């Protein structure tokens, strides 16, 4: 039954249906199967609506809006000019800066989708202009956004901590190591890519040029100050930080730079709404589909079938990694955590695994899964924002996913990558 539904969905997807169709049909077939008819489709509608209502999702349209205003105006260009004045002469400098920007942005955002939009929007034209292929650029953006999920704050870790009863501050500490490791590996890959494809470097900027770039970027540098200062200074939550960025972007581009007219602001708001709708209907349809999965208790059935109880710690960790990775290919990461964490909890306890390590692995897996076909949510965010065809968006991802998966394996065999920061601060 499950296999038939998944198979149908993938066929519909390949036939070029709007992506909400396979998700809705998959859920409908599930509802008819579970309840023996169409009588309970009201609950399907309820789940679609519930899927788009979590308060944390508000950050997504707000960051899209801020990023669109910044790009339409001058802020984004001036910030990137600044980075390029310092890194432009290094091979792969702009790509490395993109990964770095995702990491920085991750320190203020808990969501990979917001990162795709806020960092990818302004940087993608620059990467293309610098000579990177679109395939590489898109893959870099959607995969580097995973780092945002590992660098605190992270919505995934908060949910994992609450569901499994694990210390959230320890989880936050444990995410930093793997996050920086991924940044390092992506930077190395970017360097190799730039060398192999002979991406031209810019001539090194002179110090007067660098100072000029800094002066021009002073106002836009207010964005990181507002976000980081505002969140860690206790003024607003990550979601509210997104709205504060919108306000600052409006003030900057409309009053200080006089670059954006009220008419353009209206147009920007409209296009933000359009992108939001296109992504959120899929989030909602995905929620309805995951309802079917969890109502039918499919994960429990599958796990019972593979005999997880007899596996050693490595077997359990690999099984967990694979389960979360596959789950997030189809379903929203938060829902996957809610459904799967309690199912694995007894095994984790019986095997004596460190729940903080498991939480870090889970968070990494859901971040990777969210950038993985067919239904990873970062992919459809990228399609909506960048308006590139599906295939174009996913074509360059294999090397990045390979790097991410090797970090997952490394994390299983060398847990200290995640745990050393926590162990240092606990023994303090």
């Amino acid at each position, binding site marked *: 039954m499950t296999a038939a539904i998944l198979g149908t969905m993938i066929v519909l997807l390949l036939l070029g249906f709007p*992506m909400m169709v396979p998700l809705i049909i998959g859920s409908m077939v599930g509802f008819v199967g579970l309840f023996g008819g169409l009588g309970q489709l009201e609950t399907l509608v309820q789940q679609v609506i519930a899927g788009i209502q979590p308060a944390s999702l*508000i950050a997504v349209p707000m960051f899209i809006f801020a990023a669109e205003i910044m790009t339409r105006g001058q802020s984004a260009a001036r910030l990137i000019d600044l980075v390029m004045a310092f890194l432009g002469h290094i091979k792969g400098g702009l790509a490395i800066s993109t990964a770095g920007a995702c990491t920085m942005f991750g320190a203020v955002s808990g969501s990979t989708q917001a990162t795709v939009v806020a960092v990818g929007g302004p940087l993608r034209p620059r990467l293309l202009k610098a000579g990177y292929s679109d395939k590489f650029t898109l893959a870099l953006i959607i995969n580097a956004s995973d780092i945002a999920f590992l660098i605190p704050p992270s919505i995934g870790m908060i949910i994992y901590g609450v569901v499994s009863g694990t210390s959230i501050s320890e989880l936050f500490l444990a995410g930093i190591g793997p996050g920086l490791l991924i940044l390092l590996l992506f930077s190395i890959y970017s360097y190799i890519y730039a060398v192999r494809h002979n991406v031209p470097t810019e001539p090194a900027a002179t110090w007067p040029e660098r100072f000029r770039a800094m002066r021009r970027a002073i106002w836009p540098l207010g964005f990181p100050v507002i976000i980081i200062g505002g969140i860690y200074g206790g003024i607003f939550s990550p979601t509210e930080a997104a709205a504060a960025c919108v306000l600052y972007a409006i003030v900057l581009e409309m009053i200080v730079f006089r670059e954006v007219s009220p008419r353009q602001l209206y147009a920007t708001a409209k296009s933000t709404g359009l992108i939001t709708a296109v992504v959120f209907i899929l989030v909602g349809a995905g929620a309805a589909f995951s309802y079917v999965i969890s109502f039918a208790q499919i994960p429990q059935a599958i796990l019972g079938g593979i005999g997880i109880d007899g596996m050693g710690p490595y077997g359990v960790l690999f099984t967990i990694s694979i389960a979360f990775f596959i789950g997030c290919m189809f379903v929203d990461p938060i829902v996957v955590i809610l459904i799967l964490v309690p199912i694995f909890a007894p095994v984790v306890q019986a095997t004596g695994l460190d729940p903080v390590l498991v939480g870090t692995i889970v968070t990494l897996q859901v971040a990777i899964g969210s950038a993985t076909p067919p239904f990873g949510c970062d992919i459809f965010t990228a399609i909506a924002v960048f*308006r590139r065809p599906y295939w174009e968006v996913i074509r360059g991802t294999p090397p990045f996913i390979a790097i991410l998966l090797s970090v997952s394996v490394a994390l299983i065999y060398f847990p200290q990558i995640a745990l050393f920061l926590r162990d240092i601060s606990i023994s303090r």
Partner: protein
Amino acid sequence: MTNDPDPSRDATAIPGPSPVDAAVLAAAEAVQAQDDIDDGLYESGLPGPLGLLDKGIARLEAFALAFGVLAMAFNTTSNVVGRFVFGQSLYFSEEINQALIVLITFAGISYAARHGRHIRMSAITDALPFRERKAMMVITSGVTAVLLLALSWYALTYVMTQAGRGRVLPALRIPQWWILVWVPAGLFLTGLQYALTALKNLTDPEIWLSTATRDGYDLPHKDKAP
């Protein structure tokens, strides 16, 4: 992808390492800056007075999208200002955002359908010959229309059920169904747009992604019927 006919995407001015990248780059910048939809140019798929009504609805959807996003930004920042400056939270702020996100999403899916913006995986259909590609467009639009129209019916009964139960929003204390009415309306209008798209593909020689958009914004060489 080298002969993009759209002048706004003229690639000649950009010094890039290859013409292919230059075209994509121009499109990327266009997406970022100049790709606004002009509602004044929008053509409805319906004839006569129905077409006028449809154009009016399209305008309303566009307004709902812009209003929803601006109101969300205003509401969220007001809450911060209230809490931080005046020590007073807007305790209904979260519910307003929930109402707005429903409005944006369901006004937006119809607007997106009008302009062919829904996400789809076109890799395989793009590779098909013209006739087959057109046939697929009729089938996918038609099936999508039937599905969404059916779903809009269940959404309507859901909203009526909620109205009957009398559930209110805890902070605003208004009936919850007030913020849900966009759901059946949005699904119905989206379904209608897909039905009109199927019709347009049956009656017009070219291939249409929506009543107002030809297929293949990223595939210029396929823009014209052979």
